[in-house]
């Protein structure tokens, strides 16, 4: 196993300087994620413009993989609508978990840097925590809308 494959420069950079880090003022919704095994904690805040994510920020304490994954995620989903996010999530999930998944194509953008995580099964949960948290926030906003 090659450490450079896991800790690529993009990952180390986003760990050291996470983008969109810190609470969002006036969020429409938020959710908290927790991985009790390693103690990682994460909050994701969202503001919508119609069906699109107008702004997203996160905050939390975690390992380099979980922090970088969250940072990359916020950049990737900003401006996208829910259907596009769903599709992106399915693709990144496949990249992270399926040993024989096709190598990530260019459309994944910087998220492709997470492909090395696949070789480290114990770390997959670190990379997916932010996505689960985002999904929870999206569901919560859908619930809120539907109960209005």
């Amino acid at each position, binding site marked *: 196993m090659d450490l450079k494959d896991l800790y690529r420069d993009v990952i180390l950079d986003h760990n050291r300087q996470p983008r969109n880090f810190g609470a969002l003022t006036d969020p429409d919704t938020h959710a908290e994620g927790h991985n009790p095994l*390693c103690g990682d904690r994460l909050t994701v805040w969202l503001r919508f413009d119609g069906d699109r994510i107008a702004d997203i920020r996160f905050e939390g304490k975690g390992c*380099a993989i979980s922090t970088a994954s969250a940072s990359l995620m916020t950049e990737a989903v900003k401006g996208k609508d829910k259907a596009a996010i769903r599709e992106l999530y399915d693709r990144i999930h496949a990249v992270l978990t399926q040993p024989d998944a096709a190598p990530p194509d260019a459309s994944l953008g910087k998220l492709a840097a997470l492909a090395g995580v696949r070789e480290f099964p114990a770390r997959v949960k670190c990379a997916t925590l932010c996505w689960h948290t985002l999904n929870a926030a999206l569901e919560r906003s859908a619930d809120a809308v539907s109960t209005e």
Partner: protein
Amino acid sequence: MATPLASASRSFDAERVRRDFPILAQHVNGRPLVYLDNAASGQRPLAVLRAVEHYETHTHANVHRGVHALSQAATDAFEGARERARRFINARSSREIVFVRGTTEGINLVAQSFGRSRLGKGDEILISALEHHANIVPWQMLCEQTGCTLKVAPINRRGEVELEPLLGLLTGRTRLVAVAHVSNALGTVVPVERIVQAAHSCGALVLIDGAQAVAHSPIDVRALGCDFYAFSGHKLYGPTGVGVLYGREELLEEMPPWQGGGEMIRTVSFERTTYNELPWKFEAGTPNISGAVGLAAAMDYLESLGLEALAAHERHLLAQATAAIERLPGIEIIGTAAHKAAVLSFTMRGCHPHDLGTILDSQGVAIRTGHHCAMPVMTFFDIPATARASFGCYNTEADVAALVAALEKAREVFG
């Protein structure tokens, strides 16, 4: 102080000990395995593997139930293991040795049998702030069941259980004090002798969680004076799924059975069941016979190494590792008690313990990262997790050097 430690260590031949552990001969991620996760579980020497294999190959049948030869041989092996365990901790009688699945089950047995039958509203149980979840949760469950109260003696910034505040929490209502002998998260050796004296003078009983102590120094339950002592086989180079609960005979005698079933009864009718005598009263169902045989072999093995010499060897490794990693930039050692055993917990600035664990693994170095089933300890130090290296009989100075080199590698990756 350094000289006697160093010379004691030289008299202990860890390189020779290594050869007794076939699992250590492998490579992990292309590097020779450096196993430093002994606090989670030790490896098994050939003597244990062979004893278990011999039992399974030649001796197995159910115990205490047949007149046939194998059943008798299996019973002899199982009861022989009990006598071996008695000698290992210097209990007065083998009636005081109850085979359980491990430390966790031993503590739960005391909580449910002793606790449930004897404790009620107004009674107090005292633990310390450095306990493993196995010595917290069973007492919380008991409090819910009986209305008794759980009190927690604090630790200081070095991770020591200080006597003064603990004594302040001991009252006439304290019925049981349950403390670790050695902390698995911090390495602290707890002054259990003093705690036993103080608790007894208040009329409270004492349970010691010996999970992390038994593989590192000789244990004498009579000298300690404790009422209960629980430990696991797999932490002293024996099999998983077997452990011992020691209890003073008078106490066990009065305690009601915990689980019901075969083995623990004398006679059963639908009107009335009478219970077996000690220790079988607490051993419902077919026990882990091969596990007990393996555990006895592990005890033979450990004593053949010499527990005093082993303790000195591990102290030497701990001192050496502590001095070496303290010099690395950004390292903070968590748990700096004056008296520690075989456990080195730490964090590295800018590199989460989880990342450290992965990087060390890539170098063949196995350590544990996480909260070590001691979440309140992590909360106390305001950290999510630590990296923990823990030493055993087969670890060498070369292992310490490999640990340090792997940490330097982590520093390099994380800049």
